[in-house]
């Protein structure tokens, strides 16, 4: 058992436990702050999957942008959002949540069985990639590759994303403006 595997199991345990807490928490503030922990653990997992640039982007955009936005929205929408949650029954097994739990568990079983049958480590394109040496090693420097690919091979999706981002910004600003008094 190497150090990388131990770190992987620790990080995935942190991610799963904090995600479960996010799903089970009655207090919205606690669940939002626990979601920070999930996102940081996922960033660590991206590093272990040899994608350090994606990990840094995850921290900058998700933790720095999205979670702060969620906190803002939740604070702007007043204390009524809190009372909705705290007025629910506080017992852990709630019968009204049973269908959702069943749906999630059965979906997980389906994906688990599918994973067992597919055995992705033996897929054709994975084997050809390993045979051709087209695999990221822990000591490869990827950032130059990503930059060059982003500006050449993936230029069209990049531009589409930037246009969509502009639409989203304009739309969000338009939606959240003050209504004229009428």
């Amino acid at each position, binding site marked *: 058992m190497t150090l990388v595997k131990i770190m992987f199991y620790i990080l995935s345990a942190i991610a799963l436990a904090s995600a479960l807490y996010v*799903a089970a928490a009655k207090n919205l503030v606690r669940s939002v702050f626990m979601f920070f922990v999930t996102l940081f653990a996922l960033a660590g997992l991206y590093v272990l999957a040899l994608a350090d640039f994606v990990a840094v982007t995850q921290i900058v955009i998700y933790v720095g942008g999205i979670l702060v936005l969620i906190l803002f929205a939740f604070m702007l929408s007043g204390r009524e959002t809190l009372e909705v949650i705290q007025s629910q029954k506080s017992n852990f097994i709630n019968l009204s949540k049973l269908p959702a739990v069943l749906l999630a568990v059965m979906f997980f079983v389906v994906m688990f069985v599918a994973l067992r049958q597919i055995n992705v480590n033996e897929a054709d394109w994975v084997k050809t990639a390993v045979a051709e040496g087209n695999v990221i090693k822990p000591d490869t420097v990827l950032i130059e590759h990503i930059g060059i690919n982003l500006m050449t091979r993936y230029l069209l999706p990049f531009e589409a994303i930037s246009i969509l981002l502009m639409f989203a910004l304009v739309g969000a600003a338009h939606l959240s403006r003050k209504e004229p008094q009428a």
Partner: protein
Amino acid sequence: MIGLNEFLLLSAALFCIGLYMVVAKSNAIQILIGVELMLNAAILNLVAFGKYDKINNGGQVFALFAIVLAAAVTAVALAIILNVYRQYKTIDPSKINNLGD
């Protein structure tokens, strides 16, 4: 190194937790957090498979795109949630059952 199976199993579990949140929660912000959790599970898959694409970097580049898209989605969704709160004084999706005007 860590095989693909572990990553896929972890992301399946995260996806199911997100699915549970989307179905069960009665608060729009928590539903949004569930959607983010599902998106993160998908990004974890992209990154894990991206290890076998050193030349084209398909997985990692599209993971970056997915993160940026998640940011755009969140901005618009939160603007909608704020508007809904202003209109109905609640953000429970099951209580919003009449049209605006």
